[in-house]
């Protein structure tokens, strides 16, 4: 679907966020970028979204151009003045699609995340997990082939997080989308991904890759399998090796 070759990013303040990153995103996979903070995983994600330009190297898209993309941030990033319905309408509205014409897509997207009954609610009336569901519905409303997620569940409690992990895997299977997911949680990355790219900081780079061969979607029982345990150990090991000596303190 996408290949990043020799991609680098240096900011104007001299910080090198990424150095010569080579990464392929394959159609239909669930790819997780796992790494300590400051390793440039968010920068790589923003680059794929086209929100920041590489200062070296290039991105090559399979179809020749960037496809429709859904993006989910660490915070729900909803417009507080708009109802849930109008928040999910936003991507369509910016394309000039009227509320009436968009209604069916919006209702579908809200049903996908289990919030069909909350269309009229305002964001502040919702819990953190529900807000994140609205954010996911908004990212899915255009049915993008590629979904980018930047630590979307990091601020949620573990019960909500596990539930959203399962829902995300179900959505991914239903929609057949490719997902690139950023996290610093080893367990989350192993549970969700078909492939993990472990990154190291200063400068940001990929140090190893781990495949998780179990089919999607997975259930809670996957957390007790030997494969899950083995991959968690491998990912933790890779993450430890990726840390520089001062990070380990």
């Amino acid at each position, binding site marked *: 679907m996408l290949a990043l070759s020799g991609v680098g990013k240096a900011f104007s303040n001299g910080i090198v966020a990424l150095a010569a990153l080579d990464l392929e995103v394959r159609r239909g996979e669930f790819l997780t970028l796992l790494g300590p903070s400051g390793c440039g995983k968010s920068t790589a994600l923003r680059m794929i979204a086209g*929100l920041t330009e590489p200062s070296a190297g290039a991105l090559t898209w399979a179809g020749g151009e960037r496809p429709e993309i859904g*993006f989910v941030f660490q915070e729900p*990033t909803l*417009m507080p*003045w708009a109802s849930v319905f109008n928040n999910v309408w*936003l991507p369509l509205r*910016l394309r000039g699609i009227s509320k009436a014409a968009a209604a069916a897509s919006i209702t579908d997207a809200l049903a996908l995340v289990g919030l069909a009954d909350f269309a009229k609610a*305002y*964001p*502040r009336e919702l819990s953190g997990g529900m807000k994140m569901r609205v954010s996911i519905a908004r990212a899915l409303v255009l049915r993008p082939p590629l979904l980018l997620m930047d630590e979307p569940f990091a601020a949620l409690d573990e019960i909500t997080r596990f539930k959203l992990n399962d829902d995300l895997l179900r959505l991914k299977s239903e929609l057949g989308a490719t997902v690139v997911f950023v996290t610093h949680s080893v367990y989350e990355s192993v549970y969700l991904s078909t492939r993990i790219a472990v990154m190291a900081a200063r400068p940001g780079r990929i140090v190893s890759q781990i495949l998780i061969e179990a089919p999607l979607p997975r259930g809670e029982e996957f957390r007790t399998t030997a494969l899950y345990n083995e991959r968690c150990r491998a990912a933790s090991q890779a993450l430890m090796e990726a840390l520089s000596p001062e990070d380990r303190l």
Partner: protein
Amino acid sequence: MSEAARGSAGGRVLDVILPILVFLAAVAGWEAVVRIRNIPHYLVPAPSLVATTLVSDWPTLSGSLWVTLKVTFSALFAAVVGGVGLAILFAQSRWIERSFYPFAVILQVTPVIAIAPLLVIYLDPPTAVLACAFIVAFFPILSNTTLGLASADHNLVDLFKLYGASRWQQLIRLRLPAALPYFLGGLRVGGGLSLIGAIVAEIAAGTAGQGSGLAFRIVESTFRQNMPRVFAALVLIAVTGITIFLFFTLLTHLLLRHWHESVRRRDT
């Protein structure tokens, strides 16, 4: 008062009744002191005399009130149009903001009472009064709206970029709604200031201002030692100020009640 009491219905009734009781007690005390000590009405008029003056002089006073209201609201309207317009212009380019913002600050920090005499010379008096009221109301609206337009969630800005939103869409759908609470804060301050500006400028214009606003009535009545009328005019000014404040508070509540933290009612 405890938070719990404030939240309950009884607490809210007390919030209204207590200030009214204090007010009535103060007025009664004032009336009593004036009567017992026989203070002449050209020094301190009794509240009852102020009230009857308000009624008997109503034809004159209402005309002046109307003039002051017209100046206040024309100035506020101009300040909203100018302040919001300039803030939107600032939001388009940092260079424009850097070039013009210092002048807005200079206009703000120079006391209007010091500029008023000059304006009276350069402009015809009604325009000068209007200009003074505009100058004081303009800045809080400009600075608050500028701050609000710049305060849109940066992730939302990215999201708009991702979906290919135009600058216009970003302004209408994101920056203006995000700026609304800030703008309304500026409007509440600016509304009160435009009344103050209108009064101060009319006093500064003095005899040059053939205007007939409430401030002119106060100056004129002071010369004639007609204290009951001075107090009656003061009452009208205070009531106008309170009404403006309450109106914008209500407007803020109606526009923001669904989403902004400032009008959130907590369950305790």
